């Protein structure tokens, strides 16, 4: 870059932003940033470690991380093959493919509470499937830790499916051709060629799914309820604590914020990096 560009912008158009737009733009930025700043300023930093170790917060954190990780694994194990079908079913009837995509996208736009109610109606004691589980195996899912994992998977899996599907569409299929001419079976091509090629997409989808699972509140409290140590995840604990022990709620909020920042950091090339290119 020539030295003159420091004092003279090569782009004679400038930013082209009308002066009047600076005010709403500034308000929007403040609106997004100030709540987070308040949280950081007001958080009880000195007692943070104490609260995590010495109260139910630690228990909630462990449950949240465990259930979030489990939901992410569920999303990967079932979501990657579904993404495959969506990306590669190009020979199918377009109407069927659109319908499939709509089904995958619904949990993204559905209010989580509705998702929770739907899960109750499917897996609850009188649900479509749940009634048989109860009748035949005397087994009910709601209000258990598996219910937390199911709720979180329901809201998180679409992120993984769409991320992996995008990666698959972008992957050069000729690498698969090359592998085929070398004698590789479909399974080997999948495992040794395509999967590594779309690994960044899987990772991004997994991080997004984990973040979404960790913050999940509505579907979880509807389908799994609020039982300390069993279904009381961090967001639920924060909501409950706000009435009884605000300090603990702030601590939980800070921890969730830190996790979000970590997610943003992991995905920085994908989201923030797009600005510079």
């Amino acid at each position, binding site marked *: 870059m020539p030295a003159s560009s420091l004092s003279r912008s090569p782009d004679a158009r400038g930013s082209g932003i009308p002066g009047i737009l600076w005010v709403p733009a500034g308000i929007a930025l403040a609106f997004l940033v100030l709540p987070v700043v308040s949280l950081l300023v007001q958080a009880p930093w000195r007692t943070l470690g104490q609260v995590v170790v010495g109260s139910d917060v630690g228990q909630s954190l462990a449950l949240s991380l465990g259930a979030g990780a489990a939901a992410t694994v569920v999303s990967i194990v079932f979501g990657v093959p579904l993404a495959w079908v969506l990306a590669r079913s190009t020979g199918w009837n377009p109407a069927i493919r659109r319908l499939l995509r709509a089904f995958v996208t619904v949990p993204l736009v559905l209010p989580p509470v509705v998702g929770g109610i739907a899960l109750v109606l499917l897996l609850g004691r009188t649900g479509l499937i749940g009634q048989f589980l109860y009748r035949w195996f005397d087994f009910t899912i709601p209000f258990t830790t598996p219910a937390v994992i199911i709720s979180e998977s329901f809201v998180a899996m679409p992120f993984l499916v769409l991320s992996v599907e995008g990666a698959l569409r972008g992957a050069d299929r000729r690498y698969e051709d*090359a592998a085929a001419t070398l*004698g*590789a079976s479909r399974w080997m091509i999948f495992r040794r060629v395509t999967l590594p090629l779309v690994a960044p997409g899987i990772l991004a989808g997994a991080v997004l799914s984990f973040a979404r699972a960790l913050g999940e509140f509505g579907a979880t409290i509807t389908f799994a309820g609020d039982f300390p140590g069993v279904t009381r995840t961090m967001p639920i604990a924060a909501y409950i604590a706000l009435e009884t022990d605000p300090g603990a709620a702030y601590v939980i909020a800070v921890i969730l914020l830190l996790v979000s920042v970590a997610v943003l950091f992991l995905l920085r090339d994908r989201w923030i990096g797009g600005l510079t290119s």
Partner: protein
Amino acid sequence: MSGLHASFTVERPAFTLTIDLEVGTSTVTAVVGPNGSGKTTTLMALAGLIRPTSGHIRLGERTLDDDTRYVSAAHRGAGVVFQDYLLFPHLSAVENVAFGLIARGTHRAVALDAARRWLARLDLENFAAVRPGQLSGGQAQRVALARALILEPELLLLDEPMAALDASTRTEVRRDLITELRAYNGSTVLVTHDPTDALALADELIVLDAGSVVQRGIPAQVAATPANDYVAGLFEHAGA
């Protein structure tokens, strides 16, 4: 009967390719033509990556493709060097070369040993652990060649082997490729839009235009007695 015997038609909505090829062992046939003439389609059909609409492809005693039989790319065993080489970006050079052996059930350690010997033969032993992104165009081409030849294919297919190289390295890489192709005793089909490559590398030339063969013969002969203006133009600047 040995070598490649192929005669087939590939029909596409706006395009029909009809070609016949007889390529003996230790022989290089170059298919030359402009973009869209059907060169790559020819190669993909020979590799088993697309199926011709009609016709046959035989290699030695084996029928790879006719009305009743179709051998898929994975079982066909044609060695292919793709236009931009398509080395697997997540595998090292030696793992790329060993890929086909491992795919065929060779023990991993044995396959990697054999791959290292191939790299040494092509003066690439110091690049065994390097990812394809770090290789020069000429090195990548040799790795791609090793990846195909390690399986000892009866048929070797080269798609624009020089297109991904810059002009400064082309002469040297072409010379190395000539050496390798001389040492190879199977049948080679090479497609290129560059008549210079065709003249340097091929024993026989097939000129393809708009999906049809317009001329075939020994390269120097084709260049000397072009069948039409298109072929004449092709060799005008080739320095033959």
